[in-house]
């Protein structure tokens, strides 16, 4: 069933990319292959993400207001789709197929951008489809990573995947800007090249990744039902994790606000915002594997909460006056490390708690809860910015973050402690 040899060449390439051999990190071929799929898909999607504001505002003459409208509608729908996709993947054991639908939908939108021309409504629809695709694929993909990894190595496996994924987020914008330098007013080649990368990512997934929920968990899997999903949420430790992840997300400012705030407080950031973003991704990429390994060794909860404490440094840089370029460097390091210590690690924590037959469903619920909490936080931060000013808003969020981290620590110690595996 599982074609180990099939993927060896590719997996070796992926391992070389992250220096896995040298560091003595062992992850399954599936993890590396899914990482490569994500790498190419992220190159594709970040190319579009990077230039879309330019395209809409400069090329199509769209006002920021219309742009905001295009963007605002989709969060709720994408959350619903995510849970349905996770549930479907678990129910039929079809993780790969559901993920293929998600990756495929996003790939198709790239061609769509070439075809729809200047219609704002159609562009909005494409962005919506792209987001829906992303919603569909995330949980089945993380479930496949978890299902092909022994429990004690989950942190490392997610770290490897996130490192490859983020490499795409670093490369994508650079390709997009290079193409814009080559062809200053032509966005079509960017969409076309983006489509090509999406196809390569999709091909790796379709050709080499297999559904293999039997590899780690040997017992037969009962079908997922609505009732078992409900029971899943009643599992005390998973419920506790939802609360911990949720409260921390509630105290998290969105990236957009962080970069906006940095722009106002640090002069460096303002001049080259996309570079700040790329540099942060670079740090995230480099630290994802070490953070995952550390989580496996010292405890995932500790690393996860530690990551949020790093976020406090970022908050501080938004309000402390008179910071120079050196502070920008510290902020980039802290922000990248925060991502490395929290994103993959949270999925690892959840995967260790969730029963195998409901892993995609559980992960989709967790991602939905945290992303909705982040959306609420984003709206709240925007409102606080208007009402009490940016400094006061950041301070409120920083205090909230400290409280949330304390609460999450208590939860981890009392309820969500992972079974000892050493």
């Amino acid at each position, binding site marked *: 069933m599982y074609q180990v040899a*099939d993927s060896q060449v590719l997996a070796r390439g992926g391992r070389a990319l992250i220096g896995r051999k040298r560091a003595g990190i062992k992850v399954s071929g599936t993890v590396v292959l899914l990482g490569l799929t994500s790498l190419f898909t992220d190159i594709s999607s970040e190319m579009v993400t990077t230039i879309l504001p330019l395209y809409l505002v400069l090329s199509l003459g769209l006002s*920021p207001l*219309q*742009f905001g409208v295009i*963007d605002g509608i989709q969060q709720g729908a994408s959350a619903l789709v995510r849970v349905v996709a996770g549930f479907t993947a678990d129910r039929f054991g079809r993780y790969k197929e559901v993920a293929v639908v998600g990756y495929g939908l996003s790939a198709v939108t790239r061609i769509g951008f070439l075809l729809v021309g200047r219609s704002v409504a159609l562009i909005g629809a494409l962005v919506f489809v792209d987001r829906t695709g992303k919603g569909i694929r995330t949980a089945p993909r993380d479930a496949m990573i978890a299902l092909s990894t022994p429990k004690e190595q989950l942190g490392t496996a997610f770290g490897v995947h996130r490192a490859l994924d983020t490499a795409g987020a670093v490369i994508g914008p650079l390709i997009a800007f290079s193409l814009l330098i080559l062809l200053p007013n032509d966005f079509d080649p960017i969409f*076309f090249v983006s489509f090509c990368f999406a196809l390569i990512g999709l*091909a790796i997934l379709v050709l080499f990744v297999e559904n293999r929920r039997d590899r780690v968990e040997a017992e037969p899997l009962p079908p997922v039902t609505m009732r078992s999903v409900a029971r899943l949420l009643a599992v005390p430790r998973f419920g506790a994790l939802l609360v911990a992840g949720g409260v921390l997300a509630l105290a998290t400012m969105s990236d957009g606000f962080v970069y906006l705030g940095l722009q106002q407080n640090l002069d460096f950031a303002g*001049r080259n915002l*996309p570079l700040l973003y790329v540099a942060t991704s670079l740090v995230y990429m480099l630290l994802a594997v070490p953070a995952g390994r550390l989580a496996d060794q010292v405890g995932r909860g500790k690393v996860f909460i530690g990551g949020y404490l790093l976020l406090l440094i970022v908050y501080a840089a938004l309000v402390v006056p008179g910071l120079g370029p050196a502070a920008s460097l510290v902020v980039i390091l802290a922000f990248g490390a925060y991502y490395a210590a929290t994103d993959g690690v949270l999925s690892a924590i959840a995967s260790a708690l969730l029963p195998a037959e409901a892993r995609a469903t559980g992960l989709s619920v967790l991602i939905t809860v945290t992303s909705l909490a982040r959306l609420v936080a984003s709206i709240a931060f925007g409102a606080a910015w208007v009402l009490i000013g940016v400094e006061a808003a950041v301070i409120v969020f920083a205090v909230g973050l400290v409280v949330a981290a304390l609460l999450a620590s208590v939860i981890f110690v009392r309820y969500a402690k992972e079974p000892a595996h050493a």
Partner: protein
Amino acid sequence: MRRRTRLAVLAAVVAGCMGAAVVYVGLSVARSHKSSPPPGVHVVSGATLGPGASPIRTKDASSVDTEGDSKLLFVSMIPDRTAGSLAVAPLSDPTSIRAIAGLRCVRVYYAGGRGLCLTRGGILNTGYVAKVFDSSFHVERQYSVPGLPSRARVSPDGRFGATTMFVQGDSYSNGNFSTRTSIVDLETGKLVADLEKLPVTRNGQPFSNQNFNFWGVTFARDDDHFYASLGSGSDTYLLEGSMRDRTLKVLTEQVECPSLSPDGKRIAFKRIVGDAGDWRLFVLDLATMKVTRLAGDDPIDDQAEWLDDDHVVYGNDNVLWVVPADGSGQPRKLLSHAFSPAVSRAS
């Protein structure tokens, strides 16, 4: 599928995709170099402007001599390799010829012998800079401006420049746009005012809100006063500012992107007449505060420019239109493949 078959299929997909990408980009580059301007547009390179500058060079030097004439500056969008370049045409007959300068701009303005060109710059060209150029299009200085370019203006004597930039997060999942508008002394390159930092008054009372956004500056002739628009939520206001006193006061409501007429008596502006984004042009008489809607049915998103004291020119969808400033008549197409108009008046 066997292992070899799978690897072969992947190799084919990668080779096919990369090949197609290279061919597509290559063809786009080739097309951008080859394509000729649309019929009827005569393009020449080497634009110059202003007193003492040599006239626009043409292949047939006797056909156009614009020295002493008023000229129209704009960003030329003829779909070839000159697309996005700053261009100059005689105002009396702008379709007859356009001279291409060596500057690329996404927004340009020119007045009093000095121009401001918002263009890509910074590390890897990932940001934007404002380039200050003289009448020969030599760049005198440049300064970085954060965000996406929206508006640029120069005071009538060329002393001061104003830029408005959209500032936003890194991701399109985040629609939090705001604007930053600043005034710079173009002679020294020093910041004169960041509009967000100036106190605003309305009916003599302090007027403030954290959510204020400022955009679209237009300068008076006295090197002191200027006008700009202020947005707060869905409301917009016309502001009159003083650089000397460092104050802003609200004059009236529902005004965006003001543009002061050459005689300083009227302000052309855009105003939403329906849904978001559905702007039309209006003219405000500053003496009577009477507002007149200009002719035209299409939504306009531009900071208008005055052709003379009786006509307004604006860009829409890469076409420049001219319309009477008294509400009469209909918009008339002035020039195709062009946006960001600026009129350089012969003195």
